[in-house]
């Protein structure tokens, strides 16, 4: 690397390489976390796909009402929360703390509603006799895969809500920057993205006829 490709920083005169992607290390780290997490979800969904294909009695328990209606509403909620997160990041970049806080709290509220609906869905299935290793309809692995995939996603949503709360508070108090809000936003959009794959593969392929 030539000297023209390095940047001089600091009073000590240390030579530090410029960012190879033109983004802060915080954002790059979040991207790297996201792709590793995408691979984790990919592995889970592939595993589920294998088990489903290999089982001749895979259950198809999801009726339009209440399951698919619930999923439609959850999708609407999560997509809308991505929109409010975009507003939060934009306001944070502009330094508008009050507006950023409003958007971030709206995103959190939508995240909490999503988690509540998801837990309601779980309780409905548990009441029907579905557990990790048994269900009344067929392959006992259905519960294990369903609760693993949706549970990991729910964990991400819950973690995201907590992260947004921490970042919102820190940004309002001037302890965190718009860069922190942006990195949290990237994570939240990823949670939304994963849901776009969970709905068709886990719910829509197992519709009750």
């Amino acid at each position, binding site marked *: 690397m030539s000297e023209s490709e390095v940047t001089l920083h600091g009073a000590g005169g240390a030579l530090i390489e410029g960012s190879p992607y033109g983004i802060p290390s915080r954002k790059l780290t979040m991207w790297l976390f996201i792709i590793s997490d995408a691979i984790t979800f990919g592995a889970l969904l592939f595993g589920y796909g294998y088990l489903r294909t290999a089982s001749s009695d895979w259950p198809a328990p999801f009726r339009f009402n209440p399951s698919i209606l619930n999923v439609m509403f959850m999708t609407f909620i999560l997509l809308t929360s991505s929109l409010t997160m975009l507003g939060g990041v934009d306001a944070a970049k502009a330094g508008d703390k009050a507006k950023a806080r409003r958007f971030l709290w709206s995103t959190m509220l939508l995240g909490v509603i999503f988690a509540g609906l998801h837990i309601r869905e779980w309780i409905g299935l548990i009441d029907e006799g579905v557990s990790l290793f048994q269900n009344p309809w067929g392959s006992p692995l259905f519960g294990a895969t369903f609760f693993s995939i949706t549970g990991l996603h729910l964990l991400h949503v819950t973690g995201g809500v907590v992260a947004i709360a921490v970042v919102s508070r820190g940004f309002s108090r001037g302890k965190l920057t718009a860069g922190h809000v942006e990195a949290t936003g990237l994570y939240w*959009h990823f949670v939304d993205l994963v849901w776009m794959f969970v709905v*068709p593969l886990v719910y829509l392929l197992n519709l009750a006829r």
Partner: protein
Amino acid sequence: MSGSKKSGNVIVKYLPVYFVLLAIAGLEIVLAYQGFSPGVLIAILLALAFSGGALAVMYFMHLNEERRSLFLTLIPAVIFVLIMMNMLWSDSFRLLHMKPFAH
């Protein structure tokens, strides 16, 4: 307002992407009830899911506004790993029936 710059109406800017994503989600549900064979339905649903995912990554996550090098580092790596995971499928089916493919 404590801001130093005025924030733009970013929600209006991304509203078309939001509606397209909602439409994709709705279309998936409609198609799921059309009685396609499982193989065809999986192909259709995956195509729609990848389309929605690409829109979310490029616009909501702003990957289209970053340097191309970031895109070329992240996306092919994910696709490569996800494809390589499929190497396990053949072994999984072989183990399921407890016999090698040769028999």
